[in-house]
Each structure stands twice: as structure tokens, then as C-alpha cells.
């Protein structure tokens, strides 16, 4: 009986062999595809859904109620609500002071660490410890440190200032509470700014300083004309990262003081959480979230353009 090999099914080619037949473009899509799908599912879809909800009166705790379109009402309510503006002011205070303190202290520490003194590796590791901790843990243990009767912070402040330790309460005074959250965030995230600044300082080639010394530039002149301009893009990057992070700060402040006293430490993210998951005004909270997103996105874009401008000088 004659054989008909051409009628028999072809043996399946091994996967590798089949992959070899694919174009580079297809292979790259195969690698990127799952990530893209994941991003679409957990980032882009909720974003679109949030925008849609922001134009409705939907409440997540009343799934059976009719959902009505309310046009721009939620946006108008958010933008004309004095409590929202109070929260934005509190957020601005928190942002301004945390970033300023973290940049000043972080850069100073980086500059000192860059001197490469004996044991600088040990000190670098020690300084980095706060940023390795969980924000929830930090919020909880600083609540103890701030305790007026047994808190170490009060004792340290009393030791340095001579004011009795139990005579003031960082978390119990309307004037001190906004500073209490600034201090904790600065303590926790200054090491992060320091690391970025240190990377910037170490990226400056030694020959530039050597040339400056040949030109008899003073250390002060070298700092202003070489160090600062060359580290500036790194500092700006640190400001961008910390700005975005602190604009959405929630965990540490919520665990430390829950947005109290009154509304003295109620940041925008805490207001948003209260509207969305305590009052269940989902439509209103979605509008607020969209406004915050547009604000951060817009400001970050402007900032990145400024950063590129500085970098390309």
C-alpha cells in the first residue's frame, strides 16, 4: 500500500520554533500585553468609571436606588464647598512645609554624607531607617511619642526648651497639630530626599571641581556655581515625587490623628475618604477625586516641563 505522507498531519512545531517565526513587534506585544491589560483593568477602567459616576447621584451604599444624571452639580458643589477649600488649605500647608523641610534637611545630610568621613556607610544606613518603616506603624508610634505625659518627643522638647513636658500636647492643640504631622512626615521622608540628592552629588565629575580649584574658585563659589546647579534637577525630581506623594497623603495622618482636631489636620485625601466611604456620597466623591486628579496631573506636567528645561540648560 503506497504511503501518502503528505496527507498525514504535520508534527507540531516546538514553541521556541514557532516563536522564531514571529516578528519582533509581535513578540514585544506578547510581553507587554499582560501588563497593558492589567493596567487597563486596575487603572484606566476605574478612572473612566469614576468620571462617569461623577456626573450622577450614585451612592454605593444604596445599590437598589435609581441612579440619576446630575450634570455638573457635583463639580459645582465641590468647588463651592468651604469645607473642601479648608481641606485644600490644610493640604497646601502640609505640602509646602514638608517639602521645604525635607529638601533643606535632605540636601544638607546628603552634602555631609558625600564628604565620605569614617563610618559614613553606617550613618547612611541609620538615616535611611525611617523611610523603610510602614506609614501605619509610624503613625501609631508617633502618637505615643507625642503623648504629653510619657511621650519622648515632649520630654526632648522640654529638655531643650525648659517648658514642662506635660504643658503642651502636639496632637491636642489646634495650633500644634498641623505641625505635628509635618514633623512626622519630615522625619520619615527626609532620608528619601537625601538619597536622591546624594545620587545627584555623586554624579558631578571630579574634574569640574579640579578645574574650579585651578581657577582658584572658593568653596562657596564652587557650591553656588557647580554643586547647586548640577544637583538642581535631582532636587526638583525629589520635590516632584514628594509633592505627588504628599498630595495624596492619607495613611500616616489618618493613624496619627484621624484628620482632627476639628478639621485642623483634615487633608484632601481624608475628606475624600469621608465623603466616599463614610457618607457614601459616591457621585460627589468621584467629582472631588476627578478634580484632585486633574489638579495633580496638570501641576505635575507643568513641573516636568520646568524640570526638563533646567536639565537641558
Amino acid at each position, binding site marked *: 500500500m503506497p504511503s501518502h505522507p503528505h496527507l498525514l498531519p504535520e508534527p507540531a512545531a516546538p514553541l521556541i520554533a514557532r516563536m522564531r517565526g514571529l516578528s519582533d513587534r509581535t513578540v514585544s506585544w506578547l510581553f507587554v500585553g499582560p501588563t497593558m491589560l492589567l493596567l487597563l483593568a486596575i487603572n484606566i477602567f476605574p478612572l473612566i468609571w469614576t468620571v462617569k459616576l461623577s456626573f450622577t447621584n450614585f451612592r454605593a451604599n444604596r445599590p437598589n436606588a435609581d441612579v440619576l444624571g446630575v450634570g455638573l452639580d457635583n463639580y459645582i458643589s465641590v468647588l463651592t464647598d468651604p469645607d473642601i477649600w479648608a481641606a485644600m488649605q490644610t493640604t497646601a500647608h502640609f505640602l509646602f512645609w514638608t517639602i521645604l523641610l525635607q529638601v533643606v534637611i535632605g540636601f544638607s545630610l546628603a552634602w555631609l554624607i558625600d564628604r565620605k568621613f569614617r563610618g559614613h556607610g553606617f550613618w547612611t544606613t541609620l538615616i535611611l531607617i525611617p523611610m523603610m518603616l510602614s506609614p501605619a506603624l509610624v503613625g501609631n508610634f508617633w502618637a505615643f511619642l507625642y503623648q504629653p*505625659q510619657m511621650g519622648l518627643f515632649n520630654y526632648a522638647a522640654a529638655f531643650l526648651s525648659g517648658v514642662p513636658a506635660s504643658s503642651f500636647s502636639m496632637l491636642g492643640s489646634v495650633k500644634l497639630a498641623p505641625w505635628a504631622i509635618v514633623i512626622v512626615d519630615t522625619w520619615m521622608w527626609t532620608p528619601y530626599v537625601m538619597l536622591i540628592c546624594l545620587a545627584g552629588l555623586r554624579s558631578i565629575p571630579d574634574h569640574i571641581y579640579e578645574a574650579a580649584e585651578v581657577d582658584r574658585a572658593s568653596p562657596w563659589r564652587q557650591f553656588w556655581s557647580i554643586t547647586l546647579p548640577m544637583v538642581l534637577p535631582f532636587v526638583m525630581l525629589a520635590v516632584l515625587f514628594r509633592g505627588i506623594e504628599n498630595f495624596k497623603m492619607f495613611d500616616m495622618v489618618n493613624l496619627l490623628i484621624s484628620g482632627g482636631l476639628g478639621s485642623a489636620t483634615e487633608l484632601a485625601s481624608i475628606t475624600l475618604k469621608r465623603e466616599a466611604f463614610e457618607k457614601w456620597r459616591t457621585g460627589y466623591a468621584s467629582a472631588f477625586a476627578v478634580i484632585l486628579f486633574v489638579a495633580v496631573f496638570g501641576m505635575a506636567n507643568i513641573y516636568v516641563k520646568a524640570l526638563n528645561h533646567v536639565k537641558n540648560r
Partner: protein
Amino acid sequence: MSEFFRGRTIDGKKVYGAYLFTERGSEGITMGVTNVLYPMGFKYQGPKKPHAMDGFVNSPDAMRALDFHKALYKGSTSPGLNKDPNVGGEKIGCFTNPSDKGKGVQLGGQGISVVSYSPNRSEALQYIKWFANPDVQKKWQAIGGSSAANAVLNDPGYAKSSPFAQAFLDSMGMVVDFWAEPSYAQLMLAMQKRTHDFVVADKGTAKEALDALVVDWKKVFKEDGKVK
């Protein structure tokens, strides 16, 4: 009153004074504030028209009461950390809320609700029936729970069953509840914010706090379709 007790020496020992609970995140400060507001004349709504709050929530009596509560808070002290063997436990003393224009004590605890779309509605109802049973309520009280069941309160031995039992018994005759509405949480959060801002954070006046509270509550009832 609270200043009178602060830092006083009684029987050779320094007494640190009164402590007021002002928790912000849940319902803490509302519990304290309403205990002053109720006997001093605060009302949630007019007697003739439900949800008509103007002139009741922010009445002159309510403002006076809120100012009084703030003065009480300003004279109080933070809770102590040292355990005094002569205080607490069986040595605790309790009294009913003092009267002013009327009587009133805030009602604590939460009601039990059965979710209408739950697949286990009959089991939930069975549980409520079981828990409301007089014998179960007596057992509940015996192991430390609070009960307002007649079977417990009318028991001849109840008044002496704990240091607070007599005051609890007297208080049950004058309790006033917070809004019993589906939007309870929203209404509570608004009161927490307005009272905390005024009493603890020194923001504005009693009138501004209560006026803002009326605006907040109207907004909630408007969303619920209960006021226009």
C-alpha cells in the same frame, strides 16, 4: 465646674479633675455634646413639621448649651495614666444627667437591622427574637451587657446589681435618640465635624456651628427627598 476639680488636693492627694470624651472619627463628641444639649432645650425638629430644623437645632437654648459644653471642655483635663486603687471598679460613682430646661440623656447603642435583600432574613429575625427573650436579656446583663428590657430593669435586684445600675435605671426614663434615619452616618458625621470644630478646635461661634449643622442636615435630607 470642671475647673473647680482640676488639680485640687482632696484628703492630701492631688485630684486631676474632669475628663470629657471628644473622639472625632466616630460618634464620641456627639455623645458628650448631646448630653448637655438635650436637657438645656435642644430639639432636632419642630413638633408640627418633621425635619423642620431652623429655630430648633440652632435655637438660643441650643447655642447656650453648646457654649456651656465648650466651657466644660476647656476646664477639663486629659485622662490620667496612673492607676489609683481608690478609684474605679466597684468604687465608681454614677449619677443621672442633671436637668435644666427639661430632662434628657443621649441614647447609646445601635439598633439591629435586617437587610431587606439578605438571603438570610428569616435567620436574622429568629436571632432577634431569641436575643429579645427576657431570659436571654437577663443572662446578657449578668455577663456585663447593658439591657433596656423590662424583664431586666423591673427585677427587684437590678438597682443594686452594679454601681451604675440605679443611674442607668433613672436615665432610661429620659433618653433621647439621635436621628433614626437611613442616612444616620451622614447626619452623625456632620455633627461630629461641626461640634468638634467649635468645641475642640475653637473655630467660629456656637451659632455658626449650629447654623452650619442645620445646612449640612438639610443637604442630607434634601438628597433623601425628605425636604425640598
